[in-house]
């Protein structure tokens, strides 16, 4: 160190004229040592100005020593020099601590930013989840509306289809099915399963309309009789009648897969069998037309009772 060597040079020169010279005061010795230590430490980097002030104070003390070694003046100035060195060291420690505080603050800001970025990311994820959820809900709603539209269309066409039978048939509309009820007089010759011409005309129109239905309808033809005659006979007749209607519709182009025929015999009467009118009402064919949109299995009205 330049400064230390200059001090040592001063010491050498000062030591030369021995004469009646005192040695340096203990304070000056202390000042030299303290300064040498401080100049080699953090004060050099962190408190150069204060260290320089200490150097000047030490030089003033050395000058006093040269002039009058061991004097009170030398001691006083050396005292000040020692304190100046300590001040430089204290200021260096302070600045180091200030820098540490700044670094801490920077670390805190960085941590907060990290937190914030993470929060933003989480928010974005949550938003994405919400968006997905909303999209799913919207899709479901669209699907429901679509299904409703298709059902409505089916119903309209079905109405169109069954309107051709007005006057001849009773048409019952439920939410999920339409039932066309035809009495045996408008369909068959007495006690037989042979279709009459009038019936064929009507059924032909019905089949045209049925063929135009979208989706997958299911058509169940249910035959019913009154209670006259044996159960076996009535069962057979009702089945044959149902079949006859089915065969005709299929002949007219309704896909066979969608049509089925069941005979119920005297079961499920709709009127009392003790009056002629009642019996006439019980002798009927019911055509149950269902929309298959939601994939339910075919269940005719007869079986669901």
């Amino acid at each position, binding site marked *: 160190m330049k400064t230390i060597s200059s001090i040592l040079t001063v010491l050498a020169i000062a030591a030369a004229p021995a004469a009646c010279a005192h040695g340096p005061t203990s304070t000056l010795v202390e000042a030299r040592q303290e300064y040498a230590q401080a100049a080699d430490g953090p004060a050099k980097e962190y408190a150069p100005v204060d260290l320089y002030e200490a150097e000047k104070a030490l030089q003033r003390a050395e000058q006093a020593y040269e002039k009058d070694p061991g004097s009170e003046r030398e001691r006083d100035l050396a*005292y000040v020099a020692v304190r100046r060195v300590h*001040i430089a060291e204290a*200021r260096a420690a302070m600045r180091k*601590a200030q820098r*540490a*505080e700044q670094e*801490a603050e920077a670390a805190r800001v960085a*941590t907060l930013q*990290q937190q914030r970025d993470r929060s933003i990311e989480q928010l974005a994820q949550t938003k994405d*989840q919400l968006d997905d959820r909303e999209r799913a809900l919207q899709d479901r709603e669209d699907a429901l509306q679509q299904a409703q539209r298709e059902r409505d269309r089916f119903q309209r066409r079905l109405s169109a289809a069954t309107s051709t039978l007005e006057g001849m048939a009773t048409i019952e509309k439920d939410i999920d099915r339409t039932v066309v009820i035809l009495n045996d007089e408008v369909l068959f010759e007495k006690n037989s399963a042979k279709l009459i011409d009038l019936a064929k005309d009507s059924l032909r129109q019905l089949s045209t309309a049925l063929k135009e239905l979208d989706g997958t309808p299911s058509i169940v033809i249910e035959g019913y009789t009154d209670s006259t005659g044996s159960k076996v006979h009535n069962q057979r007749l009702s089945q044959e009648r149902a079949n006859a209607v089915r065969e005709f519709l299929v002949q007219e182009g309704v896909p066979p897969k969608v049509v089925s025929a069941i005979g119920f015999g005297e079961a499920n009467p709709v009127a009392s069998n003790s009056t002629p009118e009642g019996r006439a009402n019980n002798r009927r064919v019911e055509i149950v037309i269902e929309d298959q949109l939601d994939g339910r299995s075919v269940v005719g009205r007869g079986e669901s009772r």
Partner: protein
Amino acid sequence: MKSTNIAIALTTLLSVGLSVGGCAHELSQRKLVETQAAIDTAKKSERATNPEVALYVKYAHDQLAQARELMDDGKSKAARRMLDRARVDAELALALAETARSRQEAKEAWQRVEDLKEKNANKSADSNSNDFE
């Protein structure tokens, strides 16, 4: 820092005083007052209860009293030097007080960072179980 400004002001005054050279007694009088002010500031500093700070405040105080005596004895040069000693001790006391404070603030700042990191760690542990499904 106010106290540093006082110290700077005092040093400036001192150098001006010396170069002008006027009446020794008057200068010493002024120096006396200013040195007392520096000591008072050091006493009032937050760390006055810090033993190291208190020690140098005491040195400054005692040396100021000695300076007064020397002045009364007519030893103005010695009195001036004693005042310089008193003042530099007051300055050292202040510097030590400021250093202690800076160290404390740095310690607290790093503690805040630690607390924040710990809070972070806890929060992310919670929020991972927060996925709503």
